[in-house]
């Protein structure tokens, strides 16, 4: 954890006004590769990645899921990217990018960029790509991330993106937004070929042409994808293998068996904690872990008579034993989380640890007594067995046990299937309910603004004018130190008000068979599986 904290803290310096230097571009730099030749010689043997992720489409305008984005990160370039082990955006297609003020962001493209079909990549392609994403506004897409360059009516703002020449792109943001640079690292901003992609409709999977380190050779929906090193790519992400197969599985158990049997070389997302524990004892595979960014938390519904009482929420925060949840419900495959923002992000503080310390029944009792709350408090707890994995019930049971062991709570656990669950928690069927979050991009804001502004996306009726103001401030503040202070204050306010209780942060886990190298390098909080870092002997 310390290593990442150091890395991220260092990376945060100059995050806003600084120019973003490109990570190379001569084809010889990246990831210990032997050059960006992309040819047959010198590259590792083909290898197979197995996953249970599902792919929606290969068109960046039509997907907002990790399965699709994993392929896209390897097929397309974005202006900026997050290098392995870091969280500061650096140049990908861009040679440099900078904010001239919090509402104006300008990027200069690298020389000699080309798509895998040989077409030149220019600033016009960048403008086309982002505007088409906004114009299509596909319900399964991520055009919502481009809100800062979207017109008020939800359509394309013709003045938002300027391209004064072939290499320069200027974004005129409709509000101060220092997170926009992170949006440019996501596939919402992936650059597509304007000569190939339809302007107002999604491209078919066979039309998907990018300029990234790999190009798509074959895509069989739900079955497999075959990526081949892109000979036109001449950047820092030089592939270590000529060809990579990705096999798709329906069930984690199938994925586990496949990697155990040697049918695949690497298994990544998603193995259950039980499977991971089991594989850790295997001689034939290596279980590799990196820092993760996926979190779980317990949300209070402030619209219920129980949830609206701050003392009740604070008492529960005093009683939760996160380490026991990590051990008993997840077999130690997750880490305790003491803030809405996971460790490592600039401005992150373990606010709940600081305020509540270790589990303290006496303190919890005192909080309730001081507030005149009768005990035991009858609490309805909700979870869903069909969205957050098979261990969600174990976590709910463990948390309920911890609350009841204090004699301060009587907990009734209820569950519902995912789609029904969403209605129920908004309607107030549970006083406290379990949810999870996977960030869109690696910035603390993405762990705060979606949750805290006027009840957040989960509509839990939490509203704090000061919090709303602080969120606006951190999004508009260009001074890194000042921004970190605001982010700290936000987390401390959350620990005081307890609209949620953070529970755990997951790890990025992969299981590799014999002869594989470079896998561990890509296991970081960005959750980008960088196929180009991985190679296989032979």
């Amino acid at each position, binding site marked *: 954890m310390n290593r990442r904290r150091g890395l991220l803290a260092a990376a945060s310096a100059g995050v806003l006004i600084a120019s973003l230097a490109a990570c190379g571009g001569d084809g010889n730099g990246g990831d210990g590769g032997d050059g960006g030749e992309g040819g047959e010689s010198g590259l590792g043997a*083909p290898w*197979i990645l197995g996953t249970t992720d*599902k*792919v*929606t*489409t290969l068109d960046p305008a*039509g997907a*907002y*899921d990790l399965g699709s984005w994993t392929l896209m990160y390897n097929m397309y370039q974005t202006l900026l990217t997050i290098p392995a082990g870091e969280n500061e955006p650096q140049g990908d297609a861009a040679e440099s990018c900078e904010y001239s003020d919090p509402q104006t962001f300008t990027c200069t493209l690298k020389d000699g960029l080309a798509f895998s079909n040989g077409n030149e990549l220019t600033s016009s392609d960048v403008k086309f790509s982002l505007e088409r994403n906004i114009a299509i*506004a*596909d*319900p*399964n897409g991520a055009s*919502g991330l481009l809100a800062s360059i979207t017109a008020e009516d939800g359509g394309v703002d013709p003045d938002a993106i300027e391209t004064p020449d072939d290499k320069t792109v200027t974004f005129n943001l409709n509000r101060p937004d220092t997170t926009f640079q992170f949006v440019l690292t996501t596939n919402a901003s992936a650059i597509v070929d304007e000569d190939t992609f339809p302007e107002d409709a*999604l491209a078919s999977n066979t039309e998907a042409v990018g300029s990234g380190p790999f190009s798509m*050779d*074959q895509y*069989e*929906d*739900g*079955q*497999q994808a*075959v990526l081949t090193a892109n000979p036109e790519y001449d950047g820092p992400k030089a592939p270590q293998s000529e060809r990579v*197969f990705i*096999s*798709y*599985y*329906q*069930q984690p158990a*199938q994925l586990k*068996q*496949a990697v*155990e*049997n040697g*049918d695949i070389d690497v298994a990544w997302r998603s193995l259950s904690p039980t499977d991971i524990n089991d594989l850790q004892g295997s001689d034939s595979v290596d279980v590799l872990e990196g820092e993760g960014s996926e979190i779980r938390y317990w949300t209070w519904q402030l619209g219920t008579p129980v949830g609206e009482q701050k003392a009740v929420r604070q008492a529960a925060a005093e009683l939760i034993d996160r380490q026991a949840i990590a051990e008993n419900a997840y077999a130690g495959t997750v880490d305790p989380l003491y803030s809405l923002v996971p460790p490592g992000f600039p401005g992150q503080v373990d606010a709940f640890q600081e305020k509540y310390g270790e589990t303290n029944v006496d303190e919890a009792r005192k909080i309730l007594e001081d507030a005149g709350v009768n005990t035991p408090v009858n609490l309805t707890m909700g979870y869903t067995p069909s*969205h957050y994995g098979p261990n969600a019930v174990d976590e709910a049971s463990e948390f309920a046990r911890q609350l009841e062991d204090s004699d301060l709570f009587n907990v009734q656990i209820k569950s519902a*299937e*995912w*789609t*029904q669950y*969403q*209605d129920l928690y*908004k309607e107030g069927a549970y006083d406290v309910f379990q*949810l*999870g979050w996977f960030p869109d991009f690696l910035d603390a804001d993405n762990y705060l603004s*979606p949750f805290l502004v006027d009840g*957040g*996306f*989960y*509509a839990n009726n939490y509203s704090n004018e000061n919090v709303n103001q602080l969120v606006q401030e951190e999004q508009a503040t260009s001074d890194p130190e000042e921004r970190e202070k605001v982010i700290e204050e936000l987390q401390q306010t959350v620990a005081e008000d307890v609209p949620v209780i953070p529970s755990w942060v997951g790890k990025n886990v992969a299981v590799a068979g014999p002869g594989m190298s470079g896998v561990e390098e890509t296991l970081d909080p960005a959750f980008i599986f960088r196929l180009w870092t991985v190679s296989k002997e032979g």
Partner: protein
Amino acid sequence: MAASGGSLARYTALRLLLIIPMVFILSTIVFLLLRVAPGDPVSATVGGRLSEAALDERRAALGLDRPLIVQYLEYLGDVATLNFGQTITDNRPIIDIVQEHGGATLTLAVAAFVVALVLGIPLGLIAGRHRDTPGDLGIRVFGIITYAAPVFYWGLLFQLFFAGYLGWFPVGGSASPVTIFEVPDVTHILLLDAIIAGNTEAITDVLMHLVLPALTLGLLLSGIFIRLVRVNVLQSLKGDYIEAARARGIRETQVMRSHAFRNALVPVITVIGLQIALLLSGAILTEATFNWPGIGNELVQYINNRDYAAVQGIITMFAVVVVVVSILIDIINAVIDPRVRY
């Protein structure tokens, strides 16, 4: 169906016309059941990430905010014109799903049928011929177990034993990634494509992947055939013509082969048609268990995502197949069996 009249052509026309109300009723039930189930495609896929307002926007963009009757009439109109539309969650034309994945389902179904017939008919004949012997008892128990046990149960056992423990067969999938990549896609049926390409390595690979799923699904059907054939053999053995044959001094083996067994197999043709529905429903579970890239596997995913369009389209396709095959069997029966009046 009156005994007095009609022709085979009229009978056939009537049976074909019946397809329309059958598909209509089934489509309506599917449409209503999907809407009665809680949730929708938007909440199933991006719920828990967006605000209620943003979710509503997406519902509106998909037309899910329109009155149910409007959606229903539009759906019926599409079905009537054989336009099954495209999926909501990944924008794929339904017809493409059927085209791309139908070959895998067909391969599995045919292979399973072969397994069922190869196992079910001989075992049924033996059991009927040797009634109440330990062999008969064993075969009956085998038949009941294979029919009664859930198909995924056998699938998981086979995976654990033959793939995991013995390592004889692959765990799942229709072929190794390299085979799928190298065999040119001509017919959307991988085995056929491998044969066309003359790639023996690929043929072997596909067949090895096919063994466990086909055995799993085939066992389910074999139980039915065992019981059916056994009962028919017992019925045949009570027939006057058997008695007469024996009285004429014909050898027992010939009585069995030429009289008892042959007559016992006639009803199997009818049952084969009736088992198409069971075969397809079993295929869904088998495909999910073995990660078999068929239509059933796709259906499970779309059901999980509440993708109304996809589920409606795929189930309607399934329904049409079942109805058409059932009617074809009826017609074949009418042609070959003079006792069937039309």
